[in-house]
């Protein structure tokens, strides 16, 4: 295994943070402590973490409505995330964005996004900035199988192909766009094959295997940094929960979900492989789980204790400056 031990521990911590964060968000939402609605990333952790493990704070990502995992993988502070979900003034976006709009540009997180496929052209823009300014940074756009059918996907990939942008497009194919299967809604054999149409590399990735994601994303990102243009990665993955919390999931069986939880859990499988190969120990990983549990607990306490935004804040942050008279 070529991944250094320190990196493996960091990867595990990020995946465990996402899983525990999402399980806790589910409870908090069920208890009516989180307003609005939430889309949980549990089950898909290997994709966000395997890709973002190669990125720096100066590399930008765009995300989706299912964005908590990408935020954590990119290093956004879970306290500010939980406070944002709670709608508090201390949230990552001061309570103005909520679950679907968490952003932290200092960490290179250009926003979750409530519009399917909406982040793809934005990521092209972040890649354009790097290209114009002569930096070796890259931009990664995460989107789902649903997003791959939007016009913004096709326009974004064409533009990236034309300008050879340092961009990586990561299709997270979890099998379902809301309640519609990707078998039904994605024409053609797979999303990765669409890369050929735009003159870029395309690859199918086992999104339920951290090591496969890490390796293929690493190559794509290194190529983009080296000026070799964009790549489309299709990560086949699975979400453990419904489209949103409250989704009764009449489109798939609970047996199927249980099968994935039992045999295709990215965290379990990562632990099994690293401990079987004697690279990491159960003790080290248990310690991480405990540390993560404490951080989630304190994030919830922080959120719950944080003040609500002032009603007068509603008119702040629309513009940098706006000189309307009357």
């Amino acid at each position, binding site marked *: 295994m070529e991944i250094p031990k320190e990196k493996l521990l960091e990867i595990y911590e990020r995946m465990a943070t996402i899983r525990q964060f999402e399980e806790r968000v589910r409870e908090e939402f069920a208890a009516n402590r989180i307003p609005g609605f939430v889309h949980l990333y549990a089950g898909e952790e290997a994709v966000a973490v395997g890709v973002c493990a190669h990125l720096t704070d100066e590399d930008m990502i765009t995300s989706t409505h299912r964005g908590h995992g990408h935020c954590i993988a990119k290093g956004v502070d879970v306290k500010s995330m939980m406070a944002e979900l709670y709608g508090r003034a201390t949230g990552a*976006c001061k309570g103005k964005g909520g679950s679907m709009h968490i952003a932290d*540009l200092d960490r290179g997180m250009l926003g979750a996004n409530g519009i399917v496929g909406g982040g793809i052209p934005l990521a092209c823009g972040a890649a354009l900035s790097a290209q114009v*300014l002569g930096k070796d940074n890259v931009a990664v756009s995460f989107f789902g199988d649903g997003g791959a059918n939007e016009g913004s996907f096709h326009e974004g990939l*064409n533009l990236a192909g034309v300008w050879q942008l340092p961009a990586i497009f990561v299709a997270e194919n979890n099998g379902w766009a809301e309640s519609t299967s990707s078998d039904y809604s994605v024409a053609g054999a797979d999303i990765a094959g669409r890369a050929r149409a735009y003159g870029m590399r395309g690859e199918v990735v086992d999104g339920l295997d951290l090591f496969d994601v890490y390796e293929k994303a690493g190559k794509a990102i290194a190529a983009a940094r080296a000026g070799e243009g964009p790549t489309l990665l299709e990560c086949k993955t699975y979400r453990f929960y419904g489209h949103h919390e409250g989704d009764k999931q009449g489109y798939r069986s609970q047996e199927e979900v249980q099968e994935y939880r039992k045999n295709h859990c990215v965290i379990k499988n990562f632990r099994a492989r690293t401990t079987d190969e004697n690279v990491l120990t159960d003790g080290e990983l248990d310690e991480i789980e405990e540390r993560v549990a404490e951080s989630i607990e304190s994030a919830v306490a922080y959120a719950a204790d944080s003040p609500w935004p002032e009603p007068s804040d509603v008119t*702040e942050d629309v513009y940098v*400056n*706006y*000189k*309307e008279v009357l």
Partner: protein
Amino acid sequence: MSEERELTMGAAIREALHSEMERDSTVIVMGEDVVGGAGSKLPDAEDCWGGPFGITGGLAGKFGRNRIRDTPISEAGFIGAAIGAAATGLRPVAALMFVDFFGIPMDQIFNQGAKIRYMFGGKAKVPVVIRAAIGGGINAAAQHSQCLYSVFAHIPGLKVVVPSTPYDAKGLMTAAIRDDDLVFFLEHKRLMGSKGHVPEESYVVPLGEALVRREGDDVTVVAIAKMIDLALSAAEGLEAEGVNVEVIDPRSLSPLDGRTIVDSVEKTGRLVIVDEDTPRCNLATDIAALAADEAFYSLEAPIKRVTPPHTPVPFSPALENAYIPSEDRVVTAIREVMAA
């Protein structure tokens, strides 16, 4: 002498782009055919268009293809990329060509660009200028003749400027590029060739400041873009009848300088608004509501709005001439409020 120098509005805009690109290396220009001839095998194809109206010609030779980029015909792609680039350190000026094309990139404009700053709690800025041609009068029919600025003015997070003189065009473009928010810069097709005094040096016309183009005591006429010419000409004609018309050019529709308009209405007691945009929920309606809210007790006559009918823009000159507000209609409206 600089005082006597005259430029067309198009040349004034080009001069602003040129000097801002020179001043700030993060300013880039992108859009369909903004240079022209990309990928052509002909030796002289470079810069063969300079934009559909020739405004961006000559920039590529000076600043290079890295900073002035022809895009595919892909408005959602490149407008979105301009917004993403603005959030990550550049100041793109993106050319949408005809404003009528806004439907294609609209999600990127109103759900992304306009809302990024707010949704992110003020932790991002989107310094983009989107240039687009507006207006009728060239028989370009329903999909190449609209104004549509009311759509953008409606959306929080967007700014909208509409110059009516070459002087304002240069100063507003300079201000728009230096502005840290997303600014729509709308260029009326029938004003692009109009000439006027433009200083050689750089200057800024601040966003959100209306200009009183003509002073008068009897009636206030607010007119936008090409409609300013009709209002000024109507005012000249009515002078002989002893009617003193004040003509206001808002120049900036969002933010809107309501103070200048309300002050004028309080002075004259009468208001006519001339707007080439379709009548429902347009700027004329918005300005009428503002005057009704803020200057009701000064009004001596009902507010009149002169607009096209609630229809698409027709093609045939016979129909289009009937569609676009005419000077006659402006004169009639002014006489009506004077008679009330």
